[in-house]
């Protein structure tokens, strides 16, 4: 288990005990993080699981992958730390990770 902090657009925070080996999105859904919608269930096809990774963590979570690009582009979200949380696998290296959820996932 690793601790991951989600900060919503209104500033409210929730820290979850995330399970390694599954995606950040799955962990968020399992813990009732409201800012994550995840309509396509983790296939990188809906863009409704977007998170904004805090600057210090971007090197650890990595860059947007080719799989993620089309839906991020279609969402119009140009935040420099944007990622699809369904494409981030939780690992011990993410202990203490901080991400923000956008105001809307549409």
């Amino acid at each position, binding site marked *: 288990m690793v601790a991951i902090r989600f900060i919503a657009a209104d500033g409210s925070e929730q820290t979850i005990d995330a399970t390694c080996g599954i995606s950040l999105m799955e962990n968020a*859904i*399992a813990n009732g993080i409201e800012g994550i919608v*995840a*309509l*396509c*269930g983790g*296939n990188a*096809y*809906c*863009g*409704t699981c977007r998170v904004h990774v805090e600057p210090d963590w971007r090197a650890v979570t990595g860059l947007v992958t*080719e*799989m993620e*690009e*089309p*839906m991020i*582009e*279609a*969402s*119009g979200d140009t935040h420099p730390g944007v990622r699809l949380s369904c494409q981030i696998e939780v690992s011990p290296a993410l202990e203490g990770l901080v991400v923000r959820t956008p105001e809307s*996932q*549409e």
Partner: protein
Amino acid sequence: MSTVQARGCPVHQGRDDRKSARLADANLAPAENARVVGSFAAGREILRSSKVRQAGAGAEMVDLSRPDEISFFFLDGDQHRKRRAAVAGLFAPKTIVTRHRAVMDRTMDSIIASLQERGAAPLDELSWQMAVDVAAEIIGLTESDSNVNLAKRVRAVLDSSVSHNPSMLKKLLFRALMMIRVGRFWKHDLLPVIEARRKEPKDDVISYMVKENYSRKGMIMEALSYGGAGMMTTREFIVMAAWHLFEKPALRERFLSGDEEDQFAILEEILRLEPVASLLHRRAVEKTDSTTRGGAMAEDETVCISIRDANVDEAITGPCPFELDPDRAKRMKVVGPYMSFGDGPHRCPGAQVALHETRVFLDRLLRLPGIRLEAEPDILWNPQIQGYELRGAVVACDQG
């Protein structure tokens, strides 16, 4: 047909609310050599594996050396990813709200006006118009003489392309008839758009095909694949959802008084129980490992993932899997439609589009003064697409 008790959940004495299950049980025909996978977890793992390829639905007969002539339904790997990426924006939630929603509203205005004038109409005719108009906008079929004629021409090709024609003479006649129908579709619907998009590209599938220099055959195949995948499926789903809602006053009341999220939850739960597509075939190009029971595949093995079984897998549905319970998915923290739109790289791009148009259609229809289901549909089995077809439902409303 009404709710049956007999096949309900034995432990919890729950209901079996499914209308299509009996017919599917009697008719489903997985490919002969295929191992059937019914577990949700194993099915999902296989569909997401990079070591599997499309199988069934004629996939083995497709000439993969001519990717510009085949629908991306049959492609895999990088070629597939590139094509999906090129059209991904057309299906994004934002595009649905900012662009397709207007088409849905406009179509519904004309469906309602015509229904009120006639007093009654076949439900599958109305749902077909909605499904065609919305998919046509995405594909780019916007230069036809009228949307009603477009719907008729597409229906003539797609509905007849799945009929049985056993004798040789009938086969030849059928082929000739198909060529005429496809020819009409090409001349009246596809060609005018191609010419228009050559001059001025837009954001639609045909503009992409024009840019990539698809052959005439390739364009027809792709446009009709979208037709089959997006129009025929949505037509059936709208009628099925309407049937459930007409039959269950409390559910209808909840649908009409609920917010969009709750309306989607109801529709997704109906789709879980009544998936329009039932079987997905995949072949492993190399051995796959798995921690899920039934998820590992031997090299060259073909599996048939049963969407119907996966959707009622108690490991993921919780108890009473055959009961229509719109709160289930949220409670179980699963995506609402379960496996009904497939999973992995080929997961239906039109899933959200289909749910939105069904919601808009039913929300408007069910609010009409005097609306009633005058005749229930007959539920038929289409062996070619391995799915149900609902024909003969008639809706009526106050004339005015």
